[in-house]
């Protein structure tokens, strides 16, 4: 990945969030190991996030996955400080969001972040175009420039011809395209997506995921994507962090998570995953012994594709090549297929 100048990484450090009238009083107790249940039952405070440490590289899609109540929506709201942390740091680029004053925070939100919401949160009294310009209007850009940018993104998300419609006249999927266009028009280096596609039908959700992945190839923003759906997480995420009860239980690439689930909780999730579409040939490649045999398979190809290519050309051996086409390892169809079908058990993965 080539580092571009506008790609800004996000680093969340030692972040705690306790909800309640007097959260500071319980920080030390929580650090000392007080459980969420005890804090809730005895002290009437809710532990939202506990010791979160995530490094999100610039220009990639970081997925934060968790079930409802895991704290994932709370976490994403710390990045643009719609929620204040109890303690901790949120470093974006070189600045700590937590230390910003009101003005700095407002400027930060205007220029560095844009957000897409689960329930769309469009302005119902404004047309699609007027919604899309919102971020730039707030920044005080000339109207022509606002509309020029907005029209470009409206076209890009496939809403041509709907500029003058009100959100209520559009379907859910189209409303979320407006939400996406509004966020992209803002042209901020960080895109925060809070369960952006969760309210959509499965087919439309797939469609929107494709739109996002296509866009990401050209815009290379730092995307933080919240979801409760593992398939969505695996499809979109360059890196995935899994939250449970306000704690990060595992983080890493999708392959790391599918191949080495950290505990029973995660392996119960990944058992249902279509491994052939997630794991790449690099995970089952063997060192080259002698001359490269059979056909060439590019590094990074997922197992399903590799298996199809190999069976189509009726060969049981292949070799993996790196970006420059140099052979780096040997591939046996037997290993490919066994990696695709083996159910992952926590015990096996640990062994």
């Amino acid at each position, binding site marked *: 990945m080539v580092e571009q100048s506008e790609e800004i990484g996000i680093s969340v450090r030692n972040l705690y969030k306790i909800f309640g009238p007097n959260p500071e009083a319980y920080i030390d107790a929580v650090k000392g190991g007080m459980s969420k249940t005890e804090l809730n039952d005895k002290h009437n405070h809710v532990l939202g996030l506990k010791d979160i440490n995530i490094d999100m590289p610039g220009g990639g899609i970081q997925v934060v996955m968790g079930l409802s109540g895991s704290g994932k929506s709370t976490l994403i709201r710390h990045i*643009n400080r*719609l929620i204040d942390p109890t303690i901790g740091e949120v470093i974006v680029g070189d600045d700590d969001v937590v230390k910003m004053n009101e003005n700095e925070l*407002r*400027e*930060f*939100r*205007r*220029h560095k*972040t*844009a*957000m897409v*919401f689960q*329930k*769309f*949160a*469009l*302005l*119902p*009294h404004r047309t699609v175009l007027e919604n899309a310009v*919102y*971020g730039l*209007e*707030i*920044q005080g850009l000339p109207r022509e420039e606002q509309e020029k940018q907005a029209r470009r993104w409206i076209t890009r998300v496939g809403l041509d011809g709907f500029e003058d419609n*009100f959100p*209520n*006249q*559009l*379907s859910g999927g189209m409303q979320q395209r407006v939400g996406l266009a509004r966020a992209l028009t*803002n042209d901020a280096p960080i895109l*925060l997506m809070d369960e952006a596609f969760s309210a959509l039908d499965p087919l439309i959700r797939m469609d929107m995921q494709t739109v996002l992945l296509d866009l990401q190839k050209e815009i290379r923003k730092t995307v933080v994507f919240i979801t409760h759906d593992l398939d969505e997480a695996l499809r979109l995420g360059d890196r995935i962090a899994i939250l449970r009860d306000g704690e990060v239980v595992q983080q890493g690439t999708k392959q790391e998570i599918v191949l080495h689930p950290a505990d029973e909780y995660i392996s119960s999730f990944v058992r249902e995953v279509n491994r052939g579409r997630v794991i790449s040939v690099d995970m089952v490649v063997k060192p080259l012994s002698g001359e490269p045999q059979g056909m060439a398979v590019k590094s990074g190809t997922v197992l399903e594709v590799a298996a199809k290519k190999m069976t189509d050309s009726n060969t049981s051996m292949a070799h993996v090549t790196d970006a420059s086409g140099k052979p780096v390892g040997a591939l046996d169809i037997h290993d490919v297929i066994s990696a695709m079908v083996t159910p992952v058990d926590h015990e096996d993965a640990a062994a």
Partner: protein
Amino acid sequence: MDWLIEFPAMDTDRLTALKKTIDLGFRNFTRANGDMFETALYPVQWFMYRVEQLLTSSPWPLVILAFAVIAWLASRSPKITFGVIITLLLIGYFDMWEDTMKTIAMTVVATILAIIVGIPIGILMGRSNKIQAVLNPILDVMQTMPSFVYLIPVVMLLGIGRVPGLIAVMVYAIPPIIRLTNLGIRLVDKDVLEAADAFGSSNWQRLKNVQMPLALPTIMAGVNQTIMMALAMVVVASMIGVQGLGLPVLKAISNQYFTLGIFNGLAIVGIAIIFDRTSQAYGKRLQKHLEVVHG
């Protein structure tokens, strides 16, 4: 056992002394400050006078045309526009034109003042729970206090006439606009507000772009209520020298002129319906974007 049957009230001398002290205090206050209030209210008096002049001394066909145009622009409904013309023609035919124009002038000016004063108060109330906690009981008192009682301090402070009447009407009619502005702002969808914040809206941008437009239909309902209350109070205010349709009603009560009372009463009903239908239709048109729903 007398004290069980008769309530052991404060003794008469002390009660009288109390009332006297308060009255005297207020009277001294009005003597000291009455002139100042009158000067301060001079622009209001001027505005009131100009509106009344405009309505009473313009040719009646022009006035009817103007009302019809306003009704059309607000409602875009031929039915309502036609209703406005018919009502005004009937009022004129039954020789209540001048009184009706005076009443309309008073109602319009009182409503405008109530909106100018009431909406900012409602906004403050919508933004702060503390202000709401303080204002709510005051508004409760204002809405339940018998309307005649409003007249007393106003007369003491400003004497009788148009302007004191106007102030009494405005004070009586202001609670709904304050309450419904507050309600409208509090009902704005939290998700949309969060989105406005996430894009870095300042407080003013939040108010201007999100809270006010989304609260507007509710605020319009408040304006409608305020107009109705102002019309009701205009009649009561005739007791302190406000001219218009209230005066003949007052005369009809004291002399038992049944028909006079009914005619003027019906004229008030007529303009109430005009205001009500027009402002409601306008409020509905503001919500046009909510009507067409994706199927």
